[in-house]
């Protein structure tokens, strides 16, 4: 009673479009990094990286055409990764907030 993945063949045109976007974005992120945006630089770089990764996942890895279970696994991966990163970083970000006597 499981859902089956459709045997969906992605047209080559889609692959080439995604490829083109990835190349363009690679050079965009490289060039933007040479511009001084202050603290925004990292957010721009990461946003572009996340977008590129999404393209690879959705189209090259067929997540867009996959089963609900595949999508759930990907979501779990992202959720747990963010859990690890954010909660641990929360410790590092807040360590200086409360003054400790003697320090």
């Amino acid at each position: 009673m499981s859902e089956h993945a459709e045997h969906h063949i992605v047209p080559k045109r889609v692959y080439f479009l995604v490829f083109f976007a990835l190349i363009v974005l690679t050079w965009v992120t490289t060039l933007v990094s040479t511009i001084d945006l202050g603290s925004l630089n990292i957010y721009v770089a990461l946003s572009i990286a996340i977008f590129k990764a999404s393209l690879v996942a959705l189209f090259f890895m067929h997540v867009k055409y996959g089963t609900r279970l595949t999508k759930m696994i990907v979501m779990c991966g992202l959720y747990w990764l963010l859990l690890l990163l954010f909660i641990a970083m929360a410790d590092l970000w807040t360590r200086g907030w409360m003054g400790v006597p003697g320090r």
Partner: protein
Amino acid sequence: MASQTVPHHHADETLQHHFANPEQQKDASTIGMWVFLLTEIMFFGGLFLAYFAYRQAYPVAFASASNKTNLWIGATNTTVLICSSLTMALAVHAASMGKKKLLMLFLTATLILGGVFLSVKGYEYHDKWVHHEVPGYHFDCEGCQDAGHTPLFFSLYFGMTGLHAMHMLIGFVILIVLLVQAKKGKYNEKWYTPVEMFGLYWHFVDIIWIFLFPLLYLIDRSGRGLS
């Protein structure tokens, strides 16, 4: 659903006895590969945590050390890897159409592009070694600000790109195996699961690099002095 249906001729040899039908087997393989990639996300995740932790603590050291990497080599290498992702996707496409020659062509292209990436990486590593930028071995970050903390950046540089390179090497070996199997005619439009599963793995390794590139190469390239 689970029935002893008339087996498909082509898939006969490839259907393992504990599966009811080829669709279930393919489905199981796909989910299995995705769960494995899930573990890889968490594996690299630990390194990303270390990266963010130390970059947050020592932004000047990280920016300074990052500038020691070659921006254009990094960008070009990223391009090479993305090309290999395209050729891999096209290889899977060719397999799904049963086009053996095209499949072998694209697998070979992926292999070559992967090889180029690794060679460039090797050159970069050698360059770092020669310039004393390997922590623990006569380390000296020349002209770096907050040099005392720069080993942390380089540890992460080698740790993260090294682990990535190791994954690519494993991919290399598997690609060769796939090529050999493809030559023998093992894959056809009814069954090409190993090619597809490897494709997932290869794309994932590409995704890791998509993040490694900006994080390691692109910190404060405007020369402002702080990230």
